């Protein structure tokens, strides 16, 4: 009845969890509340560890009794392991070796405030309960499992993120948005194959209707105190037209996504849901049990009906004529872009600054894809180009040896700096130089390593990355690069349109405004690289990656092709670096460590080599997630490392591999070898 591997695998899992427990993780996480005061990250972790293993073990068996037996075994083994550790902890002083147990003793967290023996018994009872529940859950239908797991996950995630993602949207705003969207969605729900224009029109009108009603209520003060209106609803009073346009648009969006492929339909449907959840927890430092319950129910309802709705939507979508389908897709992407554009206004400085960082890594990921994904050249020193871009902007935008005609700014009388340092550029003048310099240095660094392949290239480029950082840091170059002090301050990019007659003079001084610059950078990078990939050069890269000798025999100019890959790839890093320097308003050599290179390489591989959406997803996961979960900072890098390993074990092609060729097929010599009959003449 118990599966042959259950005990063995549970033991492995228990050992892994025990090692984690020895890092004091349970006590450490207990300082972070998720729901109310009593449910902490530690509780979530415990449920994941004990119940999760039970569920995993239960899943491999058939039938309720067998599932419960397996689940119970799994949970009990893990639970017993933890109990043993607690007993050991109470008997022996482990804190010399495992220092974190001193601050976060295991028993303090896991014994629920009981004495050792009753606490242990309680704990074991809990493990038994979780094992049984896991077995029962595993026995229920897939839809129930999905709903429960999803709701619980969203609830826990919300609880974790509440403190980070506060003041995003007020509840009335969120509800209004959700209502407008839903009304648009429902209006078109039962109509099948209307043209897009018709659909959008109906949706817009229904959204408008919602807007009129809500706006009326708000304007007359029936719903809310007119002095205390949240951001969107206040528009009803301040600027009625804009308010109506927004609501019409929301209705139109609802109508559009009611007839859409499953993925975009589901994605769109979760947006108002997330907004409402955010609205619920707005301005709170932690989530109360009542809020948690509402979130759970909301998510459960949406998830429960999602399969039906999504099937209906994609069914209707498939019945559309081809041009209609294309139009729907295009419009959906426009909506997505629009959401992207208004996002930072709601998300606030912190979330936006995280997004900025994510976008910066997307630019670099797209750039590095040229090297690794297309040309097959493994570059572990990408940070060099990044640093050069940043330093170029820093040197050109502030008084320096370069801009002051070879005189060190410290030797200049501060009053005369403006007269002497005539070379100081604006960001827009310096940016192209940064891109160019990075690209050129990329080519220069590429030359000596042209002949190298694979791992030699990796280690040499890694060396380059370190060389650039150390040169920037070194005392020997202090007059130019500022050594450890770096270069600061650097002005932020300034958009000054007064010279062309428009009264606009805005500095991109904060994370929100620079977000748009990053977005522009990402778009540019994605556009250029996507275009390049389909040109002759792109094909040349791909054939070079497949086999250099054959590529050469086919008339591909290897040197030029390789150097172009180096140059273009580096230029994008320079572009990102330039914005980075200006965003940070200062450059410090310690920002340019090997970890940057590793991050970029990892994110494009996790996302899927050669795939632009992959770079986006990879960056969100590897850069965005750890930043937002800064609370768990002690375990950030540990999770990062483990994620790299696990992701590669489970999805070696990355999460979003490019559609045509998967990574494994692109580097396909090892497969061809198994088919000698095909390959030899």
């Amino acid at each position, binding site marked *: 009845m118990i599966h042959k591997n259950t005990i063995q695998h549970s033991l492995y899992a228990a050992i892994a969890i025990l090692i984690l427990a020895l890092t004091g993780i349970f006590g450490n996480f207990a300082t972070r509340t998720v729901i109310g005061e009593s449910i902490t990250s530690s509780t979530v972790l415990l449920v994941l560890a004990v119940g999760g293993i039970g569920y995993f073990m239960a899943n491999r068996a058939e039938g309720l009794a067998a599932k419960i037996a397996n689940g119970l075994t799994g949970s009990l083994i893990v639970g017993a392991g933890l109990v043993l550790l607690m007993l050991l902890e109470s008997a022996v002083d482990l804190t010399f*070796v495992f220092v974190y147990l001193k601050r976060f003793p295991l028993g303090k967290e896991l014994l629920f405030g009981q004495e050792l023996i009753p606490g242990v018994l309680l704990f074991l009872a809990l493990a038994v309960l979780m094992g049984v529940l896991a077995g029962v859950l595993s026995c229920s239908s897939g839809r129930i499992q999905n709903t429960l797991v999803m709701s619980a996950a969203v609830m826990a995630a919300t609880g974790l993120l509440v403190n980070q993602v506060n003041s995003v949207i007020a509840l009335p705003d969120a509800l209004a948005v959700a209502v407008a969207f839903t009304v648009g969605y429902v209006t078109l729900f039962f109509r099948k194959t209307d043209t897009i224009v018709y659909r959008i029109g109906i949706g817009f009108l229904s959204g408008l209707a919602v807007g009129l009603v809500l706006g009326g209520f708000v304007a007359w003060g029936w719903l809310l105190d007119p002095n205390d209106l949240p951001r969107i609803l206040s528009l009803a009073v301040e600027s009625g037209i804009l308010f109506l346009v927004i609501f019409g648009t929301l209705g139109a969006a609802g109508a559009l996504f009611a007839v859409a492929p499953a993925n975009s339909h589901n994605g769109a449907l979760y947006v108002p849901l997330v907004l409402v959840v955010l609205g619920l927890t707005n301005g709170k430092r932690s989530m109360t049990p009542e809020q948690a319950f509402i979130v759970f129910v909301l998510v459960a309802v949406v998830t429960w009906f999602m399969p039906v709705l999504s099937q209906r939507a994609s069914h209707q979508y498939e019945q559309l004529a081809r041009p209609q389908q294309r139009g729907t897709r295009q419009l959906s992407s426009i909506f997505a872009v629009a959401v992207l554009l208004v996002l930072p206004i709601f998300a606030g400085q912190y979330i936006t600054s995280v997004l900025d960082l994510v976008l910066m890594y997307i630019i670099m990921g797209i750039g590095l894809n040229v090297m690794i994904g297309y040309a097959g050249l493994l570059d572990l020193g990408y940070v060099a180009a990044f640093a050069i871009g940043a330093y170029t902007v820093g040197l050109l935008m502030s008084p320096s040896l370069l801009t002051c005609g070879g005189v060190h700014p410290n030797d200049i009388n501060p009053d005369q700096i403006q007269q002497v340092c005539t070379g100081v550029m604006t960001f827009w003048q310096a940016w192209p130089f940064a891109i160019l310099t990075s690209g050129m240095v990329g080519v220069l660094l590429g030359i000596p390593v042209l002949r190298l392949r694979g791992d030699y290239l990796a280690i040499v480029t890694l060396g*380059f990355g370190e060389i650039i950082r150390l*040169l920037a840091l*070194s005392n020997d170059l202090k007059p130019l690069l500022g050594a450890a002090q770096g270069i600061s301050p650097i002005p932020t990019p300034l958009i000054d349109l007064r010279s062309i007659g428009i009264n606009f003079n805005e500095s991109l001084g904060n994370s929100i405004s620079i977000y748009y610059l990053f977005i522009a950078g990402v778009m540019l990078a994605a556009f250029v690289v996507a275009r390049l990939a389909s040109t002759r050069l792109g094909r040349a890269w791909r054939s070079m990656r497949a086999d250099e000798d054959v590529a050469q025999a086919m008339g591909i100019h290897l040197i030029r092709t390789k150097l172009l890959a180096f140059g273009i790839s580096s230029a994008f890093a320079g572009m990102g670096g330039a914005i980075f320097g200006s965003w940070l308003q200062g450059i410090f050599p310690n920002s340019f460590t090997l970890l940057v290179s590793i991050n970029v390489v990892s994110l494009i591989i996790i996302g899927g080599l050669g795939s632009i959406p992959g770079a986006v997803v990879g960056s969100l996961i590897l850069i965005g997630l750890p930043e937002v979960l800064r609370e768990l900072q002690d375990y950030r890098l540990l999770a990062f490392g483990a994620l790299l390993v696990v992701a590669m074990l489970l999805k070696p092609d990355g999460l979003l591999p490019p559609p045509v060729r998967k990574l494994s097929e692109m580097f396909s010599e090892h497969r061809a070898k198994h088919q000698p009959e095909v390959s030899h003449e």
Partner: protein
Amino acid sequence: MTDSQSHDASPQPGTVDMITTSLLKNTLYNPLRLAGGLLIFLLVYVAVTNIASGNYTLEAFVRQSITGLAQGGIYALIALGYTLVYGILLMINFAHGEVFMAGAYVGFFAINAMEQSGMLADHTFLALLITLMVGVVASVTIALLLERIAYRPLRGAPRLVPLITAIGASITLQQLFLRLFGPDPRVYPRVNLYILPGIFKDLECAEVSGAQVCKGLDLIDGLYRVDVLGMNLRIRPVFFLVAFFAIVLMIALWFFVQRTKTGKAMRAVAEDKNAAALMGINVDRVIATTFVLGAALAGAGAVLFALYNQQVTPFMGFVPGIKAFTAAVLGGIGNIPGAMLGGFFLGIVESTGPALLGISSQLKDVIAFGLLVLILIFRPTGIFGEVLAEKKA
């Protein structure tokens, strides 16, 4: 399985390869070599000027070389592991530096326990031996787990995939040790291991109840002034011990690979895993053996390193790991004596370079990596490299 086939299928002479080579030679590499040559000339010029002006003396060179010898020995011991694994799997085992670190850490707990119990003082040699064994066992365990969990399932995957896994494993191990044992350095006790009291009659002497008693040469913690050829040197025997260890272990390893059945199987597996399997060789076991050998060397190196550097931190493996890989490449990766010589070479260059060129010591890594680039320009296969290096990515 990896693309062990590819080098068999290297292009026939007289065809594409020739074209490539001649093209590269005629268009780029001569100017490049010229540039490289100029750079070397410049460096030599700076060094010579430095020496001529009396800023740098032979004495300083010798002193710094001795330090570099020890550091180089450590690099060599780590580099051997890299070279072994690379030779057989064509994979950079990025986490090898962490394997080294693990040895030092677990060794610390062993030696610390023995210090507490007084065993270290009473039976120093035995205690050191046990520490060494514990360190080796720890490194080997970690390496085996690494191979089993992170690398073996990916053996058929494209080259980049195990590299990312290795980087991930490296970060995971580093962070796991950090979270388990804390960020503060653990400090090895200072150990006095006296040897050869008969020969070193005038060392470490003390009056014991009126009589002159000499303990001999302190192999680990000793520090002696020696005047040789008019040079006033300060010598720590442990530096030579490390270098000696590295050489002995390298030779042992070389014999193992050349002479034993398992060693020959390792070479066969390195060449063609499928063909080796068809001979009845258990490829998995041979690969695991390779990891074990590499890890054992790293573990031994780690304990030695910790014995004279005292401090052990979770981050101690990373930089030496990268340096050791550089050393392995310098020597020609896959080449056992090459890895060792590369390690010594790198250690000594790093140690003497900044002073010789009169630049900041911050730039010693620049010297190391610059040297790598120069060598790869002139000898892309490393100093002692062979065909292996021409394998494709």
